[in-house]
């Protein structure tokens, strides 16, 4: 059961080969048996999941099933879930039970999906290793001494460890793609505005975007069909028409032009990782694609630009956590100022506080033009680089990360070296483009991710390229040894 794809589960449920209660029970049992080694879930409500599965079985029986009826899905603990604790990986929200669903959650519920549980993540999605979580780090199923990546590390580990058939994540600077690469799964960050941000705990509002994480591009397409679409309650949600992202998966790659940015293959890229990427590109070439060398000249500026814009927006967004309306409140505040400053001292972890301070600095009087405005100007230059390239190519390809997963603790005391992890992923968020990561090989048993970047709203094309690649390769079908225990 747990080795089936979302597409196979949908078919099996329709044909009554098994019930949603059986599928959901199977995954709950695996979480129970195996998640002590991954720490990929923060909250699992067995009774609620089984009750939802029971309801799904009734709808399957009465012929009123929807696209994902009966499919258990894990959600990053950043999506507000009505009546289910939403911690965002933080002590600040450890006691927060939202009174409403995020639009993404609502859409999954309408499609009939079962909420399997809420997954571990870096605190407020700030991190590239899952180590900043208040609930302890999630671990990489390929080797539990390694990080799963972040910030959507719990979702990636849960899918890679076969504890969920698919999951949701969010990506502000690589938080879907980097953990997908580290854990050997497929993840898609859609175009900015493609998926509603309503009810997603806000980090950096001009960069945040939610997307699917699953084994294959086909399963990601299935999930995106449910997630994508305009939401009148999110003022940055796009009104552009959605498509059936499954419809064009099998299209030929004949004539496809793939751009290879020289900046993504130079110094800093692990040699063995680079070889995996080159082999993957040869496969795409064999299917009729043309590889074109090109340049994104402002690439070196993406890290500093991002680390102004994201903290600036974060410092503004996180001002809402004041110990008054919901979430953590310090004990015995002597006055209002003490209530605010001690609640935030005790409720936020180190990395979150660091980013709030950097952001506050960048936005403060006298520094705004030198930092924030400057970063926004360079953001445009970075975006224009991509637009020039897309005049010549359909898709850009390269590594998702400079190397495979690193050991827990290896970078946790050095924030600036941790920031380098995102060197190939950040620009995609700054430019608002869709990007995805798919398994492309292994280096010493550690998965490597191939990144694909497309024009705005070209999700269907990216999924098509990824699907064709996965029809010819089996990297995405490999299972880590640690997930083979607890079989039913």
């Amino acid at each position, binding site marked *: 059961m747990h080795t089936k794809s979302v597409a196979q589960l949908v078919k099996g449920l329709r044909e009554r080969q098994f019930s949603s209660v059986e599928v959901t029970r199977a995954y709950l049992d695996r979480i129970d048996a195996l998640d002590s080694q991954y720490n990929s879930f923060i909250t699992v409500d067995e009774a609620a999941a089984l009750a939802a599965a029971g309801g799904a079985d009734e709808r399957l029986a009465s012929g009123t099933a929807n696209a994902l009826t009966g499919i258990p899905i894990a959600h990053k603990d950043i999506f507000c879930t009505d009546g289910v604790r939403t911690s965002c990986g933080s002590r600040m929200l450890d006691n927060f039970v939202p009174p409403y669903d995020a639009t993404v959650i609502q859409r999954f519920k309408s499609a009939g999906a079962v909420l399997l549980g809420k997954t571990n993540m870096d605190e407020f999605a700030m991190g590239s290793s899952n180590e900043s979580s208040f609930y302890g780090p999630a671990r990489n199923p390929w080797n539990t001494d390694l990080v799963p990546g972040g910030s959507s590390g719990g979702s990636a580990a849960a899918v890679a460890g076969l504890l969920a058939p698919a999951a949701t994540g969010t990506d502000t600077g690589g938080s879907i793609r980097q953990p997908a690469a580290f854990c050997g799964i497929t993840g898609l960050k859609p175009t900015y505005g493609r998926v509603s941000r309503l009810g997603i705990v806000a980090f950096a509002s*001009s960069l945040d975007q939610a997307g699917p994480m699953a084994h294959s591009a086909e399963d990601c397409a299935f999930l995106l069909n449910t997630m994508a679409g305009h939401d009148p309650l999110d003022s*940055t949600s796009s009104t552009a028409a959605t498509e059936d992202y499954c419809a064009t998966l099998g299209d030929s790659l004949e004539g496809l032009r793939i751009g290879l940015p020289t900046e993504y293959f130079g110094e800093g890229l692990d040699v063995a990782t680079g070889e995996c990427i080159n082999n993957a590109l040869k496969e795409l070439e064999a299917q009729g694609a043309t590889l074109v060398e090109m340049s994104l000249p402002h690439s070196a500026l993406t890290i*500093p630009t991002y680390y102004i814009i994201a903290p600036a927006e974060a410092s503004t967004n996180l001002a809402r956590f004041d110990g008054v309306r919901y979430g953590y409140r310090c004990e015995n505040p002597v006055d*209002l100022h003490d209530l605010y400053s001690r609640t935030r001292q005790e409720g936020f972890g180190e990395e979150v506080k660091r980013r709030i*301070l950097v952001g506050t600095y960048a936005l403060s009087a006298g520094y705004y033009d030198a930092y924030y405005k400057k970063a926004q100007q360079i*953001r445009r230059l970075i975006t224009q680089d991509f637009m020039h390239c897309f005049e010549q190519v359909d898709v850009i390809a390269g590594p998702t990360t400079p190397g495979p997963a690193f050991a827990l603790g290896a970078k946790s005391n050095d*924030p600036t070296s941790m920031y380098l992890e995102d060197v190939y992923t950040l620009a995609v*968020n*700054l430019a608002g483009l869709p990007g995805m990561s798919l398994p492309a090989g292994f280096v010493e048993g550690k998965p490597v991710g191939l990144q694909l970047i497309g024009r705005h709203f070209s999700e269907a094309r990216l999924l098509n390229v990824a699907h064709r690649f996965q029809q010819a390769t089996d990297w995405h079908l490999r299972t880590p040894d640690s997930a083979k225990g607890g079989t039913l």
Partner: protein
Amino acid sequence: MRIEQDEIEKIAELSRIRISDEEIGQVTQRIAEILQMVDQLQAVDTHDVEPMANPLDATQRLRPDKVTQSNRRNAFQAIAPAVENGLYLVPKVIE
């Protein structure tokens, strides 16, 4: 750009984040490293480049000023740390 400890104290005050005396040295050092890393932006010529706030250059959408949601005060107050008679409680502000 160098940043001194008293500047960090000022930002922490603006951010309403208390930093203990034991932590302040370390926090200052880490933030100095980050600011040093972002300093390379200063060398870029951005004359005449329009700042980009939204990656699709979208502008704020407006909607009719119409009530569309119901009042859920009780649900929202149920998750607050301290409430009384429909009000959120904070320490006394005015003597």
